[in-house]
């Protein structure tokens, strides 16, 4: 009986870990920095943007799928919530850069 409970818990844990497709915030790669067009950026900025995205944005809401909104809408979306998330201008730019870099990979 105890083993059955452990197996159920392990199954739930494995399911949660397998849900990364619903939390699509992939780690930064050098290819991402190279793929951004029009907005030159670097790996360090993208890493900072990813860290801020998963810390600050989820204080108020869950993360939407990054392709749910148009590329040109993202700067304004982030800007509209930057004050609430205590994002400074450079941090705001880093978050937008990361989102656009991820989108450019799709």
């Amino acid at each position, binding site marked *: 009986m105890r083993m059955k409970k452990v197996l159920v818990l392990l199954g739930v*844990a494995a399911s*949660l*870990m397998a*849900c990364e497709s*619903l*939390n699509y*915030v992939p780690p930064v790669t050098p290819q991402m920095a190279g793929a951004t067009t029009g907005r030159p950026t670097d790996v360090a900025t993208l890493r900072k943007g*990813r860290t801020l995205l*998963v*810390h*600050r944005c*989820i*204080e*108020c*809401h*869950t*993360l939407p*799928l990054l392709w749910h909104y148009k590329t040109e809408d993202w700067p304004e979306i982030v800007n509209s919530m930057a*004050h*609430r*998330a*205590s*994002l400074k201008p450079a941090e705001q730019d880093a978050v937008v850069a990361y989102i656009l870099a991820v989108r450019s990979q799709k």
Partner: protein
Amino acid sequence: MLILFLTLPATVAIAGVRHFGYVYEAVTTAPGSLDIENWVTWSHTSNPQRVDGVDFRHEFEFGITENFQASLYVADWFYSADPQHSGFTYSDSALELIYNLTNPVIDPIGLAMYEEIRAGDRVFELESKLIAQKNIGPLILAYNVTLEAAWEGTGLQDREGELQQALGASYEISQRLSVGFEMLDEFVFPEWRDTERIRNFFVGPNVCFRHRNWFVTVTALAQATNTPDEADFQLRTIFGIGF
């Protein structure tokens, strides 16, 4: 308190939204941010006699670093309406510290450590909590395990321990609205003994609405056990606002 308001930096922003009324989340608030939250909890007890009470908490929540936040509960007070005595009473003030260890989005499980020190009129309490959270798309799952030690009464001679588990789920229906449920499982140890075998279990729904720089979260819990002197029903509202 006036000095505190006047010395706040003009750039201060709203801190996080609470999606749950009773369950804590592992996410800490942004450094430099401030949130003021007012808690109101109405409870109704009928066993062994009918008692209605309303608890009030006023919390100032500060983001210290990216992973560390502190809260000051300036005054916890309550109104009680029972056959023997009715009226308002100051209870205590408290300091709460939360340190975030891992992130609920990019790590397998988001974890945080919680410590609360509460002191007041004939009460001293220590509360330690491990907070676990996982965000799966629009769903937030959170679990807390809490160990509480309280000293109460004249000379603080009455001791009580409590072990509590809390589980909550909150689903984001829209950008502004989330709904879910919460459950509490309590093991109470008067004088740190389990001779009375006191077990309480509460379960009920929650709803969270947020807009601009404010949010409101409401959770209603009903007791599924039948423990004397424990609330049959409790309703908690948390209203948070940033400046």
